[in-house]
């Protein structure tokens, strides 16, 4: 390999991320060996609350689990076909079909039989969330189910009324949790979980913010394996500590000009989830010195952000930084809700194309991008919202944009050879780049 422009190095925290993830899926499956409970939910379902129940609770969040299935082409197609065999349409959320297929086939993506959750505690934001586990419960012959609505409005319109709507539902949820599990919600646990949630979300955003530096310390392909912990259990101490560690390491990389891509010469952003079974297409771009810095999706799927006085996108502050001490249960629930509703910009596109366009163009200029390569994702409507409008907005702002169609977790809808062909065309012709490595 030729001399590279910048020095590169693998991430030290990488191994730890791997370990936490593996342990997470093992713990869930093994929960019943001890007195622990299994709860089924989603990456966004306020895990701080159910995790505050007495004793041990192990979650399985649906989207990351669907992604794990998606990363395994063989198992994935079996699951998709099992769901289709039951009459479920092929164009439904690919994670959801994989998850259902895993139930129908009674197979766990990490080995053994499907570990049925003891109860469902879930939030609803896209068309699928509440319905996903509605069907799951049906397929399982009934699982105690609670689902709350977080579709209360865009981040810039969140006031007391919106927060009350969600907090009141959370109180109902607590009643449900205590009734179904026969365990109590422990306020000390809840409060600690909320502190942790703030740390996980805010420090992830801070690490992403550091990608504004040239060279970028992180590349999106690695970021995927890092943010995933936040989608598993952001309220746990283990995960919060991980993000502290990641932030320190990222700062260190910036200080020493350690680049994610040694030959960084073209900075791009993407959008939506990638086709998990084909992450090598992101590595392929690196042959051209292209670094993918992230996306609204990667930054804010778990990261919390706010718009500062200058209209810039900046990380949400931790409670410590805001000098806030959580007083009691109510205070904890309100702070948790406020953070999710105001800070999770990933939800903004649900309320309009203009909101997404505004945020994406901010990212484009603050992260100093040269172009965008958008994965037009047939597998997830939630993240694929307004993707074409986003293309128009970026083009209007003067950025070349390439789109490639695919599916995050249904390999039958992704044509790798064709995608690489389009990338070559875009990078050589439109961007005028040459391959730097063979």
């Amino acid at each position: 390999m030729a001399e590279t422009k910048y020095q590169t190095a693998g991430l030290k925290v990488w191994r730890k991320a791997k370990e936490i993830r593996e342990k997470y899926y093992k713990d869930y499956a093994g929960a019943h060996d001890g007195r622990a409970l299994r709860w089924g939910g989603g990456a966004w379902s306020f895990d701080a609350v159910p995790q505050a129940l007495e004793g041990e609770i192990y979650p399985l969040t649906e989207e990351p689990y669907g992604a794990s299935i998606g990363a395994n082409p063989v198992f994935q197609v079996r699951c998709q076909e099992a769901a289709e065999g039951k009459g479920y349409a092929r164009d439904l959320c690919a994670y959801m079909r994989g998850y259902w297929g895993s139930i129908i086939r009674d197979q766990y993506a990490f080995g053994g039989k499907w570990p049925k959750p003891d109860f469902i505690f879930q939030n609803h934001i896209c068309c699928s969330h509440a319905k996903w586990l509605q069907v799951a419960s049906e397929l399982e012959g009934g699982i105690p189910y609670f689902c709350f609505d977080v579709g209360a409005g865009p981040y810039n319109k969140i006031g007391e009324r919106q927060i009350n709507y969600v907090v009141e539902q959370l109180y109902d949820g607590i009643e449900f949790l205590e009734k179904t599990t026969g365990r109590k919600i422990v306020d000390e646990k809840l409060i600690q979980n909320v502190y942790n949630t703030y740390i996980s979300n805010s420090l992830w955003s801070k690490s992403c913010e550091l990608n504004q530096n040239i060279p970028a310390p992180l590349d999106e392909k690695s970021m995927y394996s890092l943010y995933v912990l936040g989608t598993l259990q952001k309220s746990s101490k283990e995960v919060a500590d991980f993000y502290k560690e990641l932030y320190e390491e990222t700062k260190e990389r910036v200080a020493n000009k350690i680049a994610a891509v040694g030959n960084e010469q073209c900075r791009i952003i993407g959008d939506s989830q990638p086709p998990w079974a084909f992450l090598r297409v992101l590595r392929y771009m690196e042959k051209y010195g292209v670094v993918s810095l992230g996306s609204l999706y990667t930054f804010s799927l778990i990261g919390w952000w706010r718009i500062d006085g200058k209209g810039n996108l900046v990380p949400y502050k931790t409670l410590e930084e805001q000098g806030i001490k959580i007083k009691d249960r109510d205070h904890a629930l309100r702070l948790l809700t406020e953070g999710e509703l105001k800070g999770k910009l990933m939800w903004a596109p649900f309320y309009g194309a203009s909101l997404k366009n505004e945020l994406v163009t901010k990212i484009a200029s603050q992260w100093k991008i040269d172009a965008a390569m958008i994965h037009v994702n047939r597998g997830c409507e939630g993240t694929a919202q307004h993707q074409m409008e986003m293309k128009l907005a970026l083009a209007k702002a003067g950025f070349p944009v390439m789109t490639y169609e695919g599916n995050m977790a249904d390999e039958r809808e992704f044509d790798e050879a064709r995608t690489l062909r389009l990338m070559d065309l875009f990078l050589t012709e439109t961007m005028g780049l040459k391959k730097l490595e063979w």
Partner: protein
Amino acid sequence: MIAAGIDIGGKVAKAVIVEDGKVLGKAWNLTGINKAEAAERVYNEALRKAGLQRKDVERVVATGSGAKRVTFAQGTIADAAAAARGINRLYPNVRTVIDVGAEEGRAIKVSPEGRVLDFAINEKCAAGTGTFVEAMARALEVPIEEIGKLSLSSTQTIAMNAQCAVFGESEVVSLIHTKTPKPDIARAVHDAIAGRIGSVARIVGLEKDIALVGGVAKNIGFADSLKKDLKLDVLIPDEPEFVGALGTAAAAAAGVLEEEVRAKVLEKEKYAEGK
């Protein structure tokens, strides 16, 4: 400098030999199964017509779905890049190229220098390709070269949703059964494809001038439907199917090559650790 462009399409192979932008010879024949052979044949014929021998040609570049089979080419360029350069030679004012071949329909935004600024491709579906027209012609039992003329005599428009080629056929068959005049069915077929291709073109934006190239551009019925769909005039070169080969020859002359590394890279990274 003498340079050659070889365009191995899904259905037809073309070759063009140029010297300083002047065409010395060109040829086409059906691609068939063996694309390498087709490339040899079409290149030799072009050489014969130009009265040249291989050693006289300094650079050869290939394009099209069979580009990699052109063993004697020094490199390849993408179809869209070829179309952009080709049209730039013929009509420098063209900013949008619509290129419809046997297996793919695409739209390209072209810079004044003939570079690709933006592009959109008819996503995996036969509707919007030459193959679709052929299937419909067969269902209508009219020769492919007559379906265009036939549709021009149509008196009514029928909304037809171009999707799967074979279901297109069954829609055509049921129209025949309901005694719909063939010209109207032919028109419906062309409108359907034109609609699809028109959408692809709108994605890159309809900046004038607009040109239509590729084998299907010779189908006057399709061209007519497309103009109606876009509500804009469309330039069509005399031999639209040669534009890609011409652009490839131009690229060869200019020394643009896309290094052949993808295969290697892929090989190296196949089954590389997932996420």
